[in-house]
């Protein structure tokens, strides 16, 4: 099953590359997405068989499930989107899109630190052409920054991986250094090497996640790509980088270095949120606004893992909540962008009259992502705040709440103008209209976020519990 999940999308990518007809090619996407999700659900039902290089544990399974669902939603949307851009060649786009899913499946199931790194780096390279989809100077700049910053960041993660391998080498551990073996024998690892290895991994994978101040590629990349690529990056690629970091964190926790790692994560998480807040104030570009919102939510994820204990489960829950709602945000902004041929204030105003469905979805998704009940992000943000205000600590929780409130105010300032403002006369209306194909996936994503906020099926809840236990080094 492990190979099925990896090879299915990669073979589909090859098929898409070889398909001569640009009209038929987009249809490969939804078909692959459904087959992948089906295979994943079947794999999650089965017993856990630890493999040498590939195995689906609860943590990897959870992240891959989130990515697979997100991919299905994006794949459902993409054919309708590409039909709006008939003059753009979609061969490379769809090939890279499908490779993304295969490489994410590889990363989620990899049991060896080196393989995780290789998967993450390949993922970076395969997503760069997606950013260059519009083929203009601005998207070229965004793709260049994404490549350079991402590659340098990931190089630091490689050094971190090698440092951890050296920590094991000092402790007399020999290959294969699988994560479960590293955790079992964590007491033997050399502490200085492990600590430096963790810091380098945090810098490296943190760059890919886009936590401040390592996020500088993010606003440019998200700003210049189609919304659907933004959704895939903000919900999928960042989740992959987060998972890679969590794997290192399990080793740290098993070695008794948990407090050291968690302290760093709380600080970096809060720095990210604060940084995002500063740039969200008066942010007139819709897609850049979403990028900073993504920086904020990556901060929330780190903050949650940094709190430790039950908060880790809520952080992983937030990963899914963020992915679903970000999908709605990016796709609805993409629709509005199509309708106005601009994504900047003051040109984009009064969207509720031009594209009512997309505007409503954008508004609801904004309320959801900023923690309005009963959507899923509310559950995680509320519980994280509660846990952060627990006995013996006030400051982190207080700061967390202040920053959440600040982000809400900053984003609402822009969004109210976009949705309700007086309709702009400066921008001629493009032929774009909300259709079933460009809105139904968004409604489904928002509905999923709503259902998740009210009810989480028990197998999923137990996956979250066992992942949190893994992060606490409790078997």
């Amino acid at each position: 099953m492990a190979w099925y999940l990896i090879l299915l999308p990669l073979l589909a990518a090859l098929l898409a590359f070889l398909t001569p007809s640009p009209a038929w090619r987009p249809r490969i996407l939804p078909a692959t997405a459904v087959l992948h999700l089906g295979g994943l659900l079947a794999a999650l039902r089965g017993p856990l068989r630890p493999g040498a290089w590939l195995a689906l544990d609860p943590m990897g399974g959870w992240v891959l499930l989130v990515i697979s669902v997100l991919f299905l939603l994006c794949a459902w949307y993409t054919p309708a989107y590409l039909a709006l851009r008939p003059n753009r060649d979609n061969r490379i786009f769809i090939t890279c899109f499908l490779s993304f899913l295969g490489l994410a499946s590889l990363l989620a199931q990899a049991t060896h630190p080196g393989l995780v790194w290789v998967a993450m780096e390949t993922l970076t390279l395969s997503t760069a052409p997606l950013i260059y989809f519009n083929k203009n100077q601005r998207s070229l700049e965004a793709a260049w920054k994404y490549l350079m910053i991402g590659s340098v960041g990931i190089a630091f993660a490689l050094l971190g991986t090698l440092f951890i391998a050296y920590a094991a080498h000092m402790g007399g551990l020999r290959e294969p250094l699988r994560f479960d073996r590293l955790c079992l024998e964590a007491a033997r690892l050399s502490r200085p090497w492990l600590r430096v290895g963790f810091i380098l991994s945090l810098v490296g994978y943190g760059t890919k996640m886009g936590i401040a101040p390592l996020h500088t590629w993010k606003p440019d990349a998200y700003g210049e790509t189609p919304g659907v690529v933004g959704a895939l990056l903000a919900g999928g690629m960042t989740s992959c980088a987060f998972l890679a970091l969590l794997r290192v964190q399990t080793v740290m926790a098993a070695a008794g270095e948990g407090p050291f790692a968690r302290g760093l994560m709380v600080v970096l998480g809060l720095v990210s949120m604060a940084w995002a807040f500063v740039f969200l104030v008066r942010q007139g570009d819709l897609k850049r606004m979403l990028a900073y919102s993504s920086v904020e939510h990556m901060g929330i994820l780190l903050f949650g893992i940094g709190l430790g204990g039950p908060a880790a489960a809520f952080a992983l829950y937030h990963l899914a909540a963020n992915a679903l709602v970000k999908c709605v945000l990016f796709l609805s902004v993409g629709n509005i962008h199509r309708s106005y041929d601009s994504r900047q204030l003051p040109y984009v105003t009064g969207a509720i009259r031009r594209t009512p469905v997309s505007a409503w979805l954008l508004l609801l998704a904004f309320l959801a992502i900023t923690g309005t009940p009963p959507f899923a992000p509310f559950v995680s943000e509320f519980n994280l705040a509660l846990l952060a205000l627990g006995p013996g600590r006030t400051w982190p929780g207080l700061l967390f709440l202040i920053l959440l409130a600040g982000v809400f105010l900053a984003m609402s300032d822009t969004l109210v103008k976009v949705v309700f403002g007086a309709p702009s006369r400066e921008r001629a209306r493009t032929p774009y209209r909300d259709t079933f194909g460009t809105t139904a996936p968004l409604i489904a994503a928002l509905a999923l976020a709503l259902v998740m906020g009210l009810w989480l099926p028990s197998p999923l809840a137990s996956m979250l519990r066992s992942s949190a236990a893994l992060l606490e080094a409790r078997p």
Partner: protein
Amino acid sequence: MLCDLLIALTMLTNFALVTSSRVAKVVRLAVIQGIILGSLPIAMGLGRHPHILLMAVSTVAVKGWFIPFLFRRALKQVKTPREVEPYIGYGTSVIFCALGTALSLMLAHTLPLEPGAAHPLLLPAGLATLFTGCLLLVSRKKALTQVVGYLVLENGIYLFGLMLVEEMPLLVEAGILLDLFVGIFVMGIVINHISVAFDSMDTHHLAKLKD
């Protein structure tokens, strides 16, 4: 002995890299560094392991032949002057490079090495090369020299990886080399697009996006 000499040579190439004013020369130096590094495992007497021999040969092939081939192709298509055009002067660059090397030697002392480690110089040399790569990345204007910086940075990591080379699984090593190769390849494609779009390789054209 030979091995220490090669490591010292690598550190000297770092200094040569930050002082070179011609793009073609910077590329040549990076290639020389790559070839030195690729042959290091054999100088370390590890040629008896077939998988290490295989990796050494492919490293030399990729770093010494294929990557320079990509660079030369990118250089040929651009008509602009061949100067490096640093943001900070060559003199200052040398001072920074020397500071970085000194810092690497100090840092290497704080991390304990395995008792009886055969090549204690690998760690400081790796860190110094990493630092040089970062310096080239942030202080040079041309897109191509930035890619050279990335290559040098990877060389630094490779040096450190040699401390573990006997244990590293072939799959991981091959993956790392392949990723470096594909990474440079993709960057080469982007450089081509940049030189077509702006008729130059200067990255200061790439500064339109900001808040």
